[in-house]
């Protein structure tokens, strides 16, 4: 019977305070939404990849090698004989294009492995999932199947034309299908694989270039991958000459660009969680303080202290039971929507069932937390003495001196004086609110300054690991070619040119540990005035002779090398010994790679010639007319573009993704701070109705009453902004360097935007003040009659 009475009072309380019920319900719902979204994304980000890899029998090793060096049959036989290997594919002919392909009359920034589709791919590793195009079993002659990453990057769809550089110039191939290729569909991969009809490569390329094959191996036990690879290299006599793509690298290719965003989401969900817990506790406390007389009445009607506690426990459990599923439900769409956006190139949605367990766990966790908090707070309700509660309501009997004394603040206007003093009275709440403002400000600073840094990247590509050339020239034009030496000399002597350097992609095989497994690194062969075009090192210098190398920072870390060390690099089959003279950082290729001199490459292949050139123009020489002049002179023998073109081509997707993510997070943080400020303001007013009544009676005007509430938030916002500015000044560069180290930027070249900061700081301050000003209107409803006891 008493349970029914308790339920009756609990439901009546919820209905009676609709506004407060809605407020607490929305805070609970919002906090669970944030928590579920943050944890959900972190937990699920790899699941679509794992699922796709499972469904499409993704290869754990994809080897590209010269059939003249390693006999394909021997390689495949060895793998088939190993325990723990589930599938070994055919060794299919492939051509690694070292020249640019074209689509929609524009050069692609991605290089291609043009690979023949096996005649019988069924049951083998790396099955393809066709997203667009005719569902044939194999590409038709004249067709090319491209991975989603290339299709989205170059805006290609089925029926479009892809032009590849072949023996007789550019060959147009019709895009027959857009496919999910397990190993090569990660965004920002370079090079990537495209498929052509079986037996069609000889009709496009010279026989001399048809020596490479690509072979895939899928493991039953991926954990044995390292041991198997080491055994394979040993079987080959100590070195594998070719490229290998392992599962860890593939996974990194899918997830690395989102490392920063994932870290931000974790920080955000942690703060959101703390804010929510405190808001729930504070709101329940204030609701109870306001209910003191009602509690007294209930006690006189026979409610035991336990029954009174149960009223509140039940009241907020009912509310949480409604709010939590709503928050989790919205979070479900947020998680699956975000992950599907992040992994759109693999077109594998997050399986609905995978989030059900997390949702249930989150529901139980939050319900338990709400219950624990309410039980703690509701103890006070059980201790209420009926007579005192009915007569005086909730009165403070505190004898502790808290806050700053008025004499210290007497020079301030009274509303500000009261606002500052209230901060000292509610220290815990003030600290939480301050932290929320600091986080919101830091998120806004991050969004503004990261955006500015990436914008500045266009003018200072060298700091991100690229060259600082103002014009880039590709020697291999669409129709004709010019010799390297001739072009280099011509460019050096051309008026208006300050510095010329050349570089081109090259791969090298390096021993991770002496006698241990090898790995392939994608690096750069450089020549000319590479200091002049802005190649920088974070330690040491650029290589000057054929025996010198500089390593990208993540490569140096993984090889445990630094300036002064020595590495052996297998370039085009020739083992070359290098001394490490520099370590550089680069966002390109997620911080992996090396730089060696052109002379070193020519030890292995005297005929090797680079195709890319970077020019720094003299002061006052504009790139556009310079490019026009170059093209007028050389026609289609060269391709010239402004130096930052590939920022648009290649990095725009990464930077715009980060901008969106940071902008989104900044907005969410600000909204979270706003919700917290609104809630804190309403709580402060609800808990201090009597004091506001006294102040109103003493002659404070409505505007002064509101200002006394708002000024406290204003002081906190100012302090929070100052703290955020200090934290940003002291820690931003180091923090960003840690966050970006996963993509190769160990010393992030942060460029603070003074204008951006000058705008953001007052905007946040005004936003905080507005967030407090709107709910501060509740103080006007305080009636001094509440001070009068009948």
């Amino acid at each position, binding site marked *: 019977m008493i349970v029914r009475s308790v339920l009756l009072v609990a439901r009546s309380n919820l209905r009676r305070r609709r506004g407060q019920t809605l407020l607490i319900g929305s805070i609970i719902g919002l906090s669970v939404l944030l928590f579920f979204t943050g944890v959900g994304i972190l937990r699920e980000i790899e699941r679509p990849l794992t699922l796709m890899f499972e469904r499409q029998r993704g290869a754990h090793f994809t080897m590209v090698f010269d059939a003249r060096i390693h006999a394909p049959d021997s390689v495949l036989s060895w793998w088939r004989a190993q325990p723990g290997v589930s599938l070994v594919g055919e060794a299919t002919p492939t051509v690694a294009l070292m020249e640019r392909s074209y689509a929609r009359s524009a050069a692609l920034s991605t290089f291609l492995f043009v690979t023949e589709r096996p005649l019988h791919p069924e049951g083998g590793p790396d099955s393809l999932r066709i997203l667009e195009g005719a569902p044939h079993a194999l590409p038709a002659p004249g067709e090319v199947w491209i991975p989603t990453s290339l299709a989205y990057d170059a805006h290609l769809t089925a029926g479009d034309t892809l032009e590849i550089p072949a023996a007789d110039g550019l060959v147009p191939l019709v895009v027959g299908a857009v496919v999910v290729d397990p190993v090569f569909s990660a965004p920002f991969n370079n090079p990537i694989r495209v498929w052509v009809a079986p037996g069609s490569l000889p009709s496009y390329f010279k026989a001399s270039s048809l020596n490479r094959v690509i072979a895939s191996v899928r493991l039953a036990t991926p954990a044995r991958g390292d041991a198997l690879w080491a055994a394979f290299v040993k079987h080959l006599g100590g070195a594998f000459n070719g490229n290998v793509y392992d599962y860890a690298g593939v996974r990194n290719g899918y997830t690395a660009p989102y490392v920063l965003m994932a870290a931000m989401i974790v920080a955000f969900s942690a703060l959101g969680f703390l804010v929510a817990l405190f808001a729930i506790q504070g709101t329940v406390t204030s609701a109870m303080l306001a209910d003191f007389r009602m509690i007294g009445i209930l006690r006189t009607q026979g409610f035991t202290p336990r029954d009174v506690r149960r009223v509140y426990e039940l009241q907020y459990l009912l509310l949480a039971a409604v709010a939590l599923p709503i928050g989790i439900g919205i979070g479900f769409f947020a998680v699956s929507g975000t992950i599907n956006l992040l992994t759109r190139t693999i077109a594998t949605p997050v399986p609905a069932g995978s989030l059900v367990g997390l949702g249930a766990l989150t529901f139980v966790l939050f319900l338990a937390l709400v219950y624990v908090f309410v039980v703690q707070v509701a103890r006070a309700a059980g201790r209420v003495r009926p007579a005192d509660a009915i007569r*005086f309501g909730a*009165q*403070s*009997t*505190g*004898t502790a*001196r*808290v*806050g700053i*004394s*008025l*004499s210290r603040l*007497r*020079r301030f206007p*009274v509303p500000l*004086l009261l606002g500052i*003093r209230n901060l000292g*009275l509610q220290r815990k709440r003030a600290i939480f609110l301050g932290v929320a403002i600091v986080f919101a400000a830091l998120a806004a600073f991050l969004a503004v300054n990261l955006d500015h840094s990436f914008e500045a990247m266009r003018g200072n590509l060298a700091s991100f690991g690229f060259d600082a050339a103002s014009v880039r020239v590709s020697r291999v034009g669409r129709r004709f070619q010019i010799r390297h030496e001739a072009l280099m000399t011509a460019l050096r002597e051309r008026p208006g040119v300050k510095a010329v350097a050349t570089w081109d992609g090259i791969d090298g095989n390096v021993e991770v540990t002496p006698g241990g497994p090898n790995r392939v690194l994608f690096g750069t062969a450089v020549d000319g005035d590479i200091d002049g075009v802005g190649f920088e090192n974070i330690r040491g210098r650029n290589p000057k002779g054929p025996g010198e190398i500089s390593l990208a920072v993540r490569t140096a870390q993984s090889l445990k090398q630094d300036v002064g060390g020595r590495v052996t690099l297998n370039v085009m089959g020739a083992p070359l010994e290098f001394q490490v003279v520099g370590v550089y950082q680069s966002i390109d290729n997620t911080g992996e790679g090396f730089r060696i001199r052109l002379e070193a490459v020519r030890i292995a292949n005297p005929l090797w010639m680079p195709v890319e050139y970077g020019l720094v123009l003299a002061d006052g020489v504009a790139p556009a007319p310079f490019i026009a002049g170059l093209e007028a002179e050389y026609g289609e023998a060269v391709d010239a573009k402004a130096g930052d073109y590939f920022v648009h081509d290649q990095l725009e997707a990464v930077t715009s993704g980060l901008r969106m993510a940071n902008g989104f997070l900044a907005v969410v943080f600000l909204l979270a701070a706003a919700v917290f400020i609104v809630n804190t303001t309403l709580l402060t007013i609800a808990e201090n109705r*009597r*004091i506001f*009544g*006294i*102040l*109103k*009676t*003493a*002659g*404070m*005007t*409505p*505007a*002064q009453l509101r200002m006394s509430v708002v000024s406290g938030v204003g002081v906190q916002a100012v302090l929070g902004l100052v703290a955020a500015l200090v934290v940003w000044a002291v820690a931003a560069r180091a923090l960003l360097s840690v966050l970006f180290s996963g993509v190769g930027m160990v010393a992030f070249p942060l460029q603070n935007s003074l204008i951006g900061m000058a705008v953001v700081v007052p905007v946040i301050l005004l936003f905080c003040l507005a967030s407090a000003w709107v709910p501060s209107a509740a103080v*006007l409803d305080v009636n*001094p*009659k509440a*001070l*009068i*006891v*009948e």
Partner: protein
Amino acid sequence: MTTLLTTRKLGKTYQVDAVPVPSLAGVDLAVVAGELVVLMGSSGSGKSTLLYLLSGLERPSEGEIDFDGQRIDRMDETELSLLRRAGIGFVFQAINLIPHLTLFENVVLPGYLLEPDRNRVDARARELLDSMGIGRLADRLPAQVSGGEQQRVAIARALINSPRALFADEPTGALNSAAGSAVLDAFRAINARGQTIVMATHEVKSACIGDRVVFLKDGRIEGEYRIRDSAAGPAEREAMLLAWLVEQGW
């Protein structure tokens, strides 16, 4: 003799769940400067409502209130606030000191709202606390002193801006008899210095410090009784007032 406060056909009707509940109707009252007027009546008679209306804490439903030449009933909330700040002091039965401020800070706070020279406010506060006999307790918190001492602080707070009228709602209602007597002595003393006071009470002893008693019943003034016209001693005054109140239907 200057009339400080005048009401004409003053009325107040509350809306309780959209149902009109009349609390006060047709009240005509005049308070002379320097007078101590006592409002009496049984519970629900409207004395507290009249006190709120006179002090600008509540707005009338009908009628006029003239305070020192200003029409309170026509003032907006900001004008009322400024009037309360400079012209009106209020003392509550529940005392209502701000619990986390010291006694001294409670007194100076309204003064800081009005007077830019805060040294003058501080000096005035110390003077008032001394005059109430609680100057030595100035740095204590309300919870660290007795109820009577708290109420004397509340009176000092009400007087900090030298209001033209002091309103008191059952100022001794929450106090024991000794503390209540001390508070009444304080009222008597400040009234003797020319302070206009309007006090609502249901205690005959408290009412006897006034110049006249206005008796309310069912929201209307039933009659007035002039105490100081009587030359009798305190006990006789109480007896005579009691007899008059009984006659009025108290």
